[in-house]
């Protein structure tokens, strides 16, 4: 038997929705096998990572808190990816957004007022967008590949964070620990559900996803993003400026990553610390693709990836799975998604060897 790939006449809608599910299932199967082979309880690991966070209602609040930044960043990245702008540096923009908001928090320290938190958020969005503006400038002015520039700038952002934590922004009353002061009550996101850790950023992430859906499908701006990504020559023919689109795509991605950054700083962290970059900016790339670059799909994908984070911690504490296991599962998911993607445009055909021989 030979397996042949035969091109479909039209891309399959069913496969478009089915392949992310297939990828998650394949990840579970492969994960169980791999972890069994290296001497762990493979089935148990998969159950801990993928099922326990969903079955345990007490863990749902953690899912929401983890999913929020993934959704925000994923939605922003998807806008860029749709326009064929490959912003890989959301992690750096997330850090810069967090730092910009923290700067406002430190400058307003000791003050009170409802306006402080919105100002911090605006600074966060602006910081992330400005940082994404660097690859946008380099790309439009000198044709520098944004994949490299945005990725490398991530490491610069992390060094800036370390410098600020150990130097100018170090808490004067903090026993020389490299971290900022704790934010005050007016600088911390309120929780929206009493007795939980669910902060205001969680519902905001869902609102942003729905707004992005509307913008991408119903507005001229969304149309522009889609057409520049799908066919640059047609976009120019339709009167869309590709440079402006590159700027818009990077600023949108950077702005939302920066927003996620300040929401994390003003939410779960409540201050800025050197451990702030947790890889959300990179995981959000998986979220964007697993969600098919569609804002609503990204909400679901964000929750699935949040499950792996929460479940990874559970597996670590209960069955002693290494912490890196979470990363392995997340990477497998992207890998299987890219592999199964071929089914959207092709169908698998089994050919008998006899016939193949005839033709040759």
């Amino acid at each position, binding site marked *: 038997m030979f397996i042949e790939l035969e091109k479909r*006449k039209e891309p399959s809608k069913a496969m478009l929705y089915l392949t992310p599910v297939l990828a998650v299932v394949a990840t579970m199967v492969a994960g169980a096998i791999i972890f069994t082979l290296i001497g762990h309880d493979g089935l148990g690991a998969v159950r801990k990572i993928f099922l326990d966070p969903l079955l345990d209602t007490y863990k749902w609040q953690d899912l929401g808190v983890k999913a929020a930044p993934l959704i925000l960043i994923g939605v922003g990245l998807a806008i860029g990816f749709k326009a064929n702008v490959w912003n890989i540096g959301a992690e750096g923009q997330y850090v810069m957004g967090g730092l910009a908001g923290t700067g406002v928090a430190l400058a307003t320290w000791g003050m009170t007022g409802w306006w402080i938190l919105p100002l911090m958020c605006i600074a966060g969005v602006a910081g992330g967008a400005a940082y994404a503006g660097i690859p946008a400038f380099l790309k439009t002015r000198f044709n520098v590949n944004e994949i490299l520039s945005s990725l490398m700038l991530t490491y610069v952002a992390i060094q800036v964070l370390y410098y600020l934590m150990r130097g100018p922004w170090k808490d004067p009353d903090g026993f020389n620990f490299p971290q900022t002061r704790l934010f005050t009550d007016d600088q911390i996101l309120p929780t929206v559900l009493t007795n939980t850790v669910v902060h205001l950023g969680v519902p905001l992430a869902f609102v942003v996803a729905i707004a992005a859906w509307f913008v991408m499908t119903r507005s001229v701006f969304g149309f522009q993003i*889609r057409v520049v990504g799908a066919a640059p020559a*047609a976009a120019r*023919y*339709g*009167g869309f400026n590709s440079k402006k689109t590159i700027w818009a795509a990077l600023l949108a991605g950077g702005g939302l990553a920066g927003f996620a950054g300040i929401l994390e700083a003003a939410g779960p962290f409540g201050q800025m610390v050197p451990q702030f970059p947790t890889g959300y900016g990179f995981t959000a790339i998986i979220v964007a693709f697993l969600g098919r670059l569609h804002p609503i799909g990204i909400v679901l994908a964000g929750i699935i990836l949040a499950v792996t984070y929460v479940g990874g911690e559970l597996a670590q504490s209960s069955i002693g799975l290494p912490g890196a296991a979470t990363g392995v599962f997340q990477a497998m998911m992207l890998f299987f998604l890219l592999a199964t993607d071929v089914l959207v445009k092709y169908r698998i055909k089994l050919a008998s060897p006899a016939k193949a021989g005839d033709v*040759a």
Partner: protein
Amino acid sequence: MSDSVQHRIELKGITKAFPGVLANDAVSFKVKPGEIHALLGENGAGKSTLVKMIYGIMQPDAGEIIWDDEPVMVANPKAARKMGVGMVFQHFSLFEAMTVLENIALGMDGSYSQASLEEKIREVLHAYDLKLEPHRIVSTLSVGERQRIEIVRALLLEPRLLIMDEPTSVLTPQEVGQLFETLRKLSKTGCSILYISHKLHEIRDLCEAATILRGGKVVGECDPREETPKSMAEMMIGGNLKQISKAKTREFGADRFVADGLTVPGEGDFGVALDDICFKVRAGEIFGIAGVAGNGQNELLLALSGEQPSSNANAILLDGQPIAAMDAVGRRNLGLCAVPEERNGHGAVVDFSLTDNAILTARERMGMASSGILKGGVATAYTSKVIDDFAVKTTGPGSLAGSLSGGNLQKFIMGREILQDPEVLIVSQPTWGVDAGAAAAIHQALVDLAENGSAIVVISQDLDELLAISDRMAVINEGRMSKTLNVGEASIDEIGLLMGGVHGDPFATAEMTEAVHVH
């Protein structure tokens, strides 16, 4: 092998299916030694698939290929060449930065020394009276010369069957004449020629037999010398050919669209610069721009449509208003619509629905957007109107542009622009790769639009098309525009010379210039 064989090649019941289409359905025909045999059919009739199987690029699902009276299996192109089949493709595969000799050496199956190969090439050039300099760099050659490289490459293998796929679409009329002489000489040596084309005049001049395909099936055979182009066209489309109705006495208004000293620098090493382009189109007039491919037509379309704005605003005037500095949206709002040559990815986005493709260019003029928000209902209604008015075969406004056949997509694109009721319409290659029925509909739509007072510019490599629909025309050659000719008075020879005559052979061009001027 001697030519005692009855048939050089015979196809018996060749069938080939692709997902959703039966490209060839039990096709059978025979070609005698030394015969020039035409394979006729509209786009999508299955001609290319058929010759790809003869040349071993793909294999038939069923049926037999019989070569010199023996059944054969053609596994790949190398096997085909070994058997004695040569092929000249419509699109050349040449390295622009290398010499003619190097390009030919790369395509040879065996290994030769540079000197012996050059000697062989010169022998072939001499035997067939072809003009080509083996040491020229390919990027400096005209399309006609490039085609000669491919022909020489095929002739070096001493083929006994030469397949030519649409060879004349890129040639001037003079170059076509030269090519035919070469092919006739070749056929006298006993080499059969399988000639694919939809240009019926040429087939009448050249071929002694023809097989007509429609929808993958053989629908007829004929001796082209005893047919008229009209009778063959009707066999091809299986119906009556509609004539374009064009009022004999047409009134033209004032100058609507004027290019006055339009100059654009060439892009990259192989781009063509536009040099001081000047022409005027009156209201109600169709202005044709002829020329061999690659002489600046693409650059001209981009400059006229606004995709490539110019710094000199006065280089293009629309009703007296300078517009050359505006982008495509600005010009469209003033009533200038355009259709580029390439449909896929330029004129339309294949992965988008037809409605989205309508939004692409009609959103401003047809009110599909207000304050940045798209109006889906308006866009769908306009798309449905285009589909109805231009008889686009599709399942509806929601279907993907890529799911339409080339001709249907072209009808949709033309309809999308024409129904915007433009003051000026610029179209490039309006019927390229479009079947005869759709082409007639597109031509009629252009004529009707002109009769309503629009100024239309048609850039085309198809001279017959320009002579049929335009009122005046000019020729573009190496980025320069010729003087304007009145279509009724221009002779084909004169136009051919303006197109560059016989490229790479100044002597032949000079000789022909004299001949024309004697008339």
